Structures are given as structure tokens and as C-alpha cells.
């Protein structure tokens, strides 16, 4: 049924993505593709993978943006101008517009944990859900003719054959910078909810009325390097030396 759950889901499983930490390495893109091509549903196909016009289905993509304050012209010229790497995958919205437009009932939002999924055996591949999503979270698999999207690694997070440490989405497990976090955003005491509260986690395109579950943590204000100079140890400063090194320091001074 493509009507959304009538009650708020007791759990809101989702991701918190820290834009301050992401280094744009694309490791999560590759691990997502790798896990999901052999996991839930059809493989994530590529078209012309070794040719000139490569394209393929991805459930997670990293964009990179430059942000220039009003008084700046180019990055690095003024104030907080900066480059931000921006991972983007399904936000598992509370008011998911992709679900309600589905004519077949293939798209649905789970009542128990809020994960938005596609039943690929019911999908006719009309593409309307991809049109309805303002975030571009859904991509048609051109080989299978069905819509693909992030499953929040539903085949990992409940999978008791995996070690507990691995029962998180593949992208989160892989991230070498710890920029991606997974948890229950309905629980105010969960680590992700605390992170969101402390760092001012935000919704993407709130004006679209989708009420995304996933949150993004904004980059911290940039500190000017000069302000930190006083805290940097000078190369020839031996004030903190103790024991043998203190003796060596004073002996060598006396020579």
C-alpha cells in the first residue's frame, strides 16, 4: 500500500552525515555499490562500463560544493569561503512523496522503523517516484527496469549472521573519516539524536515538505590559522621536558 504509515513510526532509522568531517573520498559510494549489487533485489547495473560513455545505478553519490560568502569572489579570498563534500543518499522522509505517487504499491514506507523500500517484483519502472523525489535519491536500473534506492542496508542492520559491529549500513561501516552515523532518530537519547541536537543538524530542502529523517551536520565555523598560532609549540621550546630529557636538556645547555 502506498499510503504512508498513519501513525508516526516508533523508530526512525536513518543517517546523520557530518559535513564538517567528510573528506570526499567516495569510499562510501564504492562500498554501497559493492554491497547493494549483491544484496537486496536486482544487481546495480552499469551501462557501457568499460566504454567511453559509462553510466550506472548508484544509491549514494558525493557532490562537492564551493560556498562563497557575500563579500568574496573566489574560494579562499574571504571569510568562511570553503569547499564542502556532500554525500547524498535517500533521506527516508516521513512525508515521502516518492511513496504516495507509486501506482502499483511497489514503493512503501515501513510502519515499524520508517525505512522506505521498493518491492522490485511489483515495480513497473514508470519512473514517477524518481520525479517526485526532490533529492534525486532514486535511480532507475536500466538493465532490470525497476527503481533502485537506498535500503538503509536493511539486509545488514537486522542481519544476525553478521557480527554486531557490522550491523550498520555499509556506507557508515566503511567511512574512514567517521562522517556518517546510523541510528534511531525517534529516540531523543540515541547517539545520532544527541549529535543532531548539539551540532544543529538540519533538513535538506525543508520547503519541499518531505520531513526527511536523515540529518546533515553543518560544517563548523572556520578558524583563522593565525588565531591558533599562540597554541602551537615552538620548535625550540623544551619547557615540558621531564626525566632523562630534562637532564639532557640542561646538560647540553651548560656545555
Amino acid at each position, binding site marked *: *500500500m*502506498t*499510503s504512508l504509515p498513519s501513525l508516526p513510526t516508533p523508530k526512525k532509522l536513518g543517517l546523520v552525515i557530518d*559535513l564538517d568531517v567528510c573528506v570526499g573520498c567516495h569510499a562510501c*559510494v564504492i562500498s554501497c555499490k559493492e554491497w547493494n549489487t549483491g544484496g537486496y533485489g536486482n544487481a546495480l547495473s552499469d551501462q557501457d562500463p568499460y566504454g567511453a*560513455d559509462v*553510466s*550506472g*545505478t*548508484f544509491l549514494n*553519490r558525493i*557532490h*562537492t*560544493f*564551493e*560556498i*562563497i*560568502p*557575500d563579500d568574496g569572489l573566489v574560494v579562499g579570498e574571504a*571569510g*568562511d569561503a*570553503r*569547499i564542502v563534500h*556532500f554525500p547524498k543518499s535517500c533521506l527516508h522522509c516521513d512525508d515521502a*512523496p516518492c*511513496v*504516495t*505517487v*507509486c*501506482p*502499483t*504499491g511497489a514503493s512503501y514506507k515501513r510502519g515499524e522503523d520508517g525505512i522506505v523500500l521498493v518491492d522490485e517484483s*511489483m*515495480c*513497473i*519502472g*514508470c*519512473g*514517477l517516484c*524518481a*520525479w*517526485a*523525489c*526532490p*533529492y*534525486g535519491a532514486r*535511480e*532507475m536500473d*536500466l538493465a*532490470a*527496469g*525497476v*527503481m533502485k534506492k537506498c535500503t538503509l542496508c536493511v539486509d545488514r542492520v537486522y542481519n544476525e549472521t553478521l557480527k554486531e559491529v557490522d550491523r550498520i549500513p555499509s556506507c557508515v561501516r566503511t567511512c574512514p573519516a567517521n562522517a556518517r552515523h546510523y541510528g534511531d532518530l525517534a529516540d531523543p537519547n540515541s547517539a545520532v539524536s544527541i549529535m543532531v541536537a548539539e551540532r544543529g543538524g538540519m*533538513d*535538506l*530542502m*525543508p*520547503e*519541499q*515538505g518531505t520531513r526527511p529523517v536523515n540529518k546533515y551536520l553543518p560544517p563548523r565555523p572556520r578558524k583563522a590559522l593565525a588565531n591558533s598560532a599562540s597554541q602551537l609549540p615552538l620548535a625550540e621550546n623544551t619547557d615540558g621536558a621531564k626525566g632523562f630529557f630534562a637532564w639532557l636538556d640542561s646538560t647540553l645547555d651548560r656545555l
Partner: protein
Amino acid sequence: MHPAFSIIVFTTLSGFGYGLAAVLGLGLLGPEYWATKVLHVLALAMISGGLLSSTLHLGNPQRAWRAFSQWRSSWLSREGVMAILTFIPLCISAWLCLFEDTYSPTVGLVGAAGCIVTVFCTAMIYASLKSIDAWHTWLTPLCYLLFAATGGALLAGIGTLLRFYASSIELTLPAMALLVAAWLSKIVWWRRLRSMAPTSTPESATGLGAIGRVRLFERPHVNDNYLTHEMGYRIARKHARKLSRLAVLYGGVVPLILLTLMLVTGSGAPILFFQLGALLLFGVGVAIERWLFFAEARHAVMNYY
């Protein structure tokens, strides 16, 4: 948005078909004339052709029957259900006309209402999408309904001409009024599109507007992907204004002049030429309009590209 050929053919053909079926359902054309019978068959053929063409863009058309199930939430499902339900009175009307030379006002009016509701559902598939500013307005169903009605009235006009070889003022005047209303509503639609501020911006899409202006520095992949192919169509915007003026000129102004000439001429061979010319040019105008409808529409996801 990518203007898929199959969807343009579907909305144009089925729009004309439903418009014609609705006019036939009003009983304005005598059921005993062969031209009316031909028009009944033509309307059903256009509607079926349009529906079949719409399944061409599906990834798994063999499961299309599943699309009748979600009418509670989905306008696409509602359209499918209404299209099938509307076939029933339309086929009965066609049968009565073709084989029994009669017209039933009940069946005819139910069919006409079904046509209106079906075209409305088609338009609402687009109008309900908040992610596409251009379409998300009540003007979208208004345009679809008026264009379908105009196409139907012009097609029906051919039938009356073949019957009487004289222009019928009771069909031509409403056709002219619909023609004007359709293009006026489209002009308002275009004005709204070209003057509106986008709902979402790269700043709101990334949440980084508090720091400053946001601009894409590097896209996720060097090549195009499904999203940029499907939603990042850019070709038409360069010539959009020119194309829309041409559509109004050839699809609206010239047909209006031809229809006026037809009324003035009154009877004889040239009137068929005027009516056919008006119909064909209107068809060309609608095809351009429908192409622009997709090609000009900007999707919110392009704020990320």
C-alpha cells in the same frame, strides 16, 4: 525534464481522443451519419493508441496491471482506473452509434464526464509533483482540459463538415472560444513559470546558505547519470520563448483566423480546407506546447548538479 517521445505522443493523442469522445458524448452530432460513426472509432483508436504508447516507457510493462491498485494515493493509478472505467460508456456509445443509429444521453454524458475526469487525472500526475515548480499549479490541469476540449471540438468539426458541407456555427463558435481559452491559460502558465522564484535553491538543497552562495564544484561522476538524463534536460530552454511564441502563432492565432474565414465563407469546398488546416496547425502547436511542458520544467534535484 526529459521530453520522452512516448509520453508526448500519449498526452497529445489521448487528449485529442478524450476531447473528441466528450464532444460525441454530448450528442451534438447525429448518430445516423457515417462521419459520426468514423469519429467514434477514431476517438477510441486515439485513446487506446495513447494508452498503449504510455506503456512504452515502462521498464516492466508486463506488470502494468498492478497500476490499477493504488488509486487511494496515486494520480497515475487513478488515471489508469478512470481510463478503463471510461472505456465502458465510450464503447457502449460507439456501439449504439455504429450499429443501432441511436444516441443515449445517459451513456453519452457519463462517458463525457469520464473523459473529463481522466484528462484531469493525467494532468494531476504532473501538477501534484512539488519537486517540479513549473507543473505544481492548478493551471496545469486547466491547460490540459482546455487543450483536450479544443482538439475534440476541432475534430468533431470535421465530422459536421463532411455531413453538411457547410460550417455549423453551434460547433465552430465553441471551438473558437475553447481555442482562445486554451492558449490564454497556457500564456498565463508560461508567465507564471518565467516570473516565479524557484522553491528550492542550491542553498536550501545543501543547507549551506548560511555560509554564502553555493555552487557545484565537482559533480559526483564525470559522465551523465539517470538523474541528469531524466531531469537535467537543457536543450529547449535556449529557444523556449521563441518556440512558445511559434506555438501560439501557429497553434492558436492562425487556426483562429482559419475558423473565422470558415464561418464567413459559410459553405463550399474551401471550408473543409479551413477546418482541416485549423486542426492540423493546432495539433502542431499542441505538440510544441507539450514538448516545452517537459523540456522547460526544472526539477529540484538539479540544485545538486
